[in-house]
């Protein structure tokens, strides 16, 4: 596919934190270069184009739509479907759109239990009338509408057809620039590709990789707040649950350089079906224990295993449709 010289670009957010927007602004001077090369037709965070303006575009008129955030509200579905129709290429930008992101952990609970806690049970809430936000509120002046809170958060690819992904929470400036360069180059990678990042796991570029012992053998994992790791030694080898081996590289090992283990925001590699499951497999593989009791001991400090291995990708788990959500 050849893109025109001045490509039409849209940015949109869904249930995101705005960090992806910041990531674009953090391009700094490079942002101006990018803006020279593109024509932004929709960017609610920065430009006041309205949805109607998008609707007025002909189908496929937008060359690239960058969409961040997970899909959590009915309105998100509506907008991204519209953008899909109007765009030649849709890019899921950032962890939430890519895999579900941290807000995806909310899928461990039912929608009702979330509403119940946030508006009724939270300790600072005073709500004797048990008021909950609702889709239509009648007031003396007229009806006020709110979009519907959906049953679960979904990554973009589960709602619309996505062409490419840009990983990271948020994507780093380098990753973003590389992704944009790839898209503008006209030499488009195969559909579904992850842009801007490495084809290999973080260990490949981790400054501590060469300090790994020949065989990793963990008797017992440790949590980051319980000891002071040697900053010059592989954190995994020291028993920290660093997800570098299973996480796509390209982040410049920023967390590791701050002495903290990788938590997996760049998501899985191309040949990996499910990030969490693959993480489990590698973690289990380095446990140096042979019986159930020993294995449980090794894992002992890691009580919230789901929160560790699915921190950014629970909504992408193949079992997502089967999960029995907690009601309280």
């Amino acid at each position, binding site marked *: 596919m050849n893109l025109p010289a001045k490509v039409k670009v849209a940015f949109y957010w869904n249930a995101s934190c705005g960090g992806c927007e910041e990531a674009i602004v953090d391009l700094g001077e490079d942002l101006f270069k990018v803006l020279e090369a593109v024509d932004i037709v929709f960017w609610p965070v920065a430009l006041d184009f309205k949805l109607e303006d998008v609707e007025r575009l002909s189908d496929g008129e937008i060359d690239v739509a960058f969409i961040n955030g997970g899909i959590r509200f009915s309105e998100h579905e509506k907008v991204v479907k519209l953008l899909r129709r109007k765009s030649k290429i849709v890019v899921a930008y950032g962890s939430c759109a890519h895999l579900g992101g941290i807000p995806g952990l909310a899928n461990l609970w039912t929608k009702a239990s979330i509403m119940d806690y946030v508006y009724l049970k939270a300790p600072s809430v005073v709500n004797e009338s048990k008021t909950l936000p609702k889709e239509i509120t009648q007031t003396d002046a007229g009806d006020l509408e709110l979009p519907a809170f959906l049953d679960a958060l979904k990554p973009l690819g589960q709602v619309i057809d996505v062409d490419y992904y840009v990983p990271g929470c948020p994507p780093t400036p380098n990753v973003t620039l590389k992704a944009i360069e790839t898209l503008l180059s006209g030499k488009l990678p195969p559909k579904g590709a992850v842009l801007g990042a490495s084809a290999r*796991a973080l260990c*490949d570029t981790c400054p501590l990789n060469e300090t790994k012992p020949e065989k990793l*053998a963990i008797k017992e994992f440790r949590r980051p707040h319980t000891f002071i790791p040697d900053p010059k030694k592989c954190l995994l080898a020291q028993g920290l649950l660093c997800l570098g*081996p299973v996480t796509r590289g390209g982040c410049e090992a920023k967390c590791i350089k701050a002495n903290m283990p990788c938590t997996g925001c760049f998501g899985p590699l191309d040949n*990996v079906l499910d990030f969490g499951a693959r993480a489990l*497999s*590698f973690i289990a593989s*380095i446990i140096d224990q042979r019986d159930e009791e020993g294995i449980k001991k090794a894992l002992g400090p890691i009580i919230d295993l789901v929160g560790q291995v699915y921190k950014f990708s629970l909504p992408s788990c193949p079992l997502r449709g089967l999960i029995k959500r907690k009601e309280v």
Partner: protein
Amino acid sequence: MSNEPRIGVYICHCGTNIAGVINVEELTEFASKLPNVVIAKNYQFMCSKPGQEMIIEDIKQHKLSRVVVAACSPRMHEPTFRRCVQSAGLNPYLLEMVNIREHCTWVHEHEPDKALEKAKALVATAVARASNLEPLEEKELPVVKSALVIGGGIAGLFAALTLANSGVKVYLVESSPTIGGKMAMLDKTFPTLDCSKCILTPIMNEVANHPNIELLTYAEVVDVQGSVGDFKVKVLLKPRYVDPTKCKACGECAKKCPASAPNEFDMGLSKRKAIYLTFPQAVPTVYTIDPKVCLYFTKRDRMGRPICGVCQKICPAQAIDFNMQPKTVEINVGAIIIATGFETFDPRLKKEYKYGVSPRIITSLEFERILCATGPTGGKVLCPPDWKEVPKRVVFIQCVGSRDLTVNVPYCSKVCCMYTAKQAILYKERVPDGEAYVIYIDVRAAGKGFEEFYRRAVEEFNVTYIKGRVGEIVIDPETKKPIIRVEDTLAGCMIELEADLVVLAVGLRPSQSTLKIAELLKVSRSPDGFLQELHAKLYPVQTAVDGVFICGCAQGPKDIPDSVAQAKAAASAALEILAQGFVRTIGHVASVDKELCSGCGICVSVCPYDAIAIKVEDGRRVASVEDVKCKGCGSCAAACPSGAMQQRHFKDIQLMPVIKTLART
């Protein structure tokens, strides 16, 4: 290879085994409609010559690129059909077998409809998998035609001889100063009562003089690298301080030597000098200085000079060299046989038996030395420690450190029943008026001539057998003689038996060397601590490490004829590799996509065979698989967090369609 696979499906009736339960025609019809299936047929016996010829013909005629055979278990006929497709020019790994007999018709005989439904699912699965199969290569790697035998006991000797006689260069490594092992300590052997040394020493000499055998005694294997066909082994030669090329074993040195120590060969019942020859027929017949005892090494005068050196002064051959240093030699072998033998159970662990408390309580191996003409008493049966009293009542206690969970030994040591019968007979031969009692749990006399031998002890030599497990042995405060307390379970009464001598029939344990070697060679051990054979029945002398074989008591307790038989078996198993001249790698090994590999090293951590290493290539750390070491378990592929490591023939893209098809249908 053409883009679209062309699959032929062949459904076997297996007589009525399959066709008698399910409708094979319907199954064939179903198979013929599956994606990429070019042809589907059924036949009465697919493994028969006409069946195979049909497949071969079809491969050629229909240009089949994959073959699916739905028949019996692949464990049964996969090799057959692999050969079959190979003879038609197809790579054998492009065959996929479906087990519709053992896993379907035989186990769902009464539910033909459901069985058919399941057979369809299984065939559909195999077709899905077959499409993604890849041709695989089995490599042939050259073999160094030499072998290392570790351990110079009877098993090691025969293993070495068998190989050497077949033209293989053998390095025989023995940690003690002489070969011969435990058998050299025995007086007579059951059930024929041959003189142990008489039959052993000629073998020892044959080994020593064999042109194909290089004897490395007083030596230890310290490092092993490489793999089957090409092991690089480092052997440490401990210094004897006696030049073996000069020593004539005249024995002058020992006569003058002022320092002495308990003689290990006599189980400490006698003494030897600091410079010693283990026994007169030791091979090599060379003296050795024990630096832990020798005054040259242990004591200095005020000037800091050694206080002794008499042997050096008097040695007519000038063979003494106090400056001798340990030396490491490196050898290159294609196969390794472990024959590191056993140790006897330490009866101190059975406190109630008072071993070590009374000198009248001894082990069977100690008694063996007492019986032996070269032993501390010259073969006369006398009581330790002063060797004056002839014991008139000897009580043999069986199963000390065998079949005893209180000391963590669940297994039977196999030889104790028979050696006890032998020792009782030998005792009665020499002390005809003495009484011999054997206290036993069961008499296990399964072996050629064994039961007869045991009957001889009872009937001809009047040895008294008492069934029961000894509760404890107390020492009579006055006579200082041991009193055995046991419940005679046949008579149903408690017995107290005062003995002049108690012989504990100690069981067999893996030797320390066995444990060390197991670790070094990464050979696993079974729960009893002995070396684990690859398969108890089919591969009893092989180990999980290719090219490493086991025999004798290192593998488990056994008697001399079994040890010899096993030694020859191990040698012949090694010869399979050595004679062939090459080793063939398997096809379904792990392989790494270096482009995707991050060098994280998780795979290295899971490989039981050390087949994977992280290497730096083009400035990047990447995993690298040594095909010949890989056994194709696939654990690394499951561990790889990147999907870079795949097991050939069981790749994700080959297994996932299988799982999906099965889960859906």
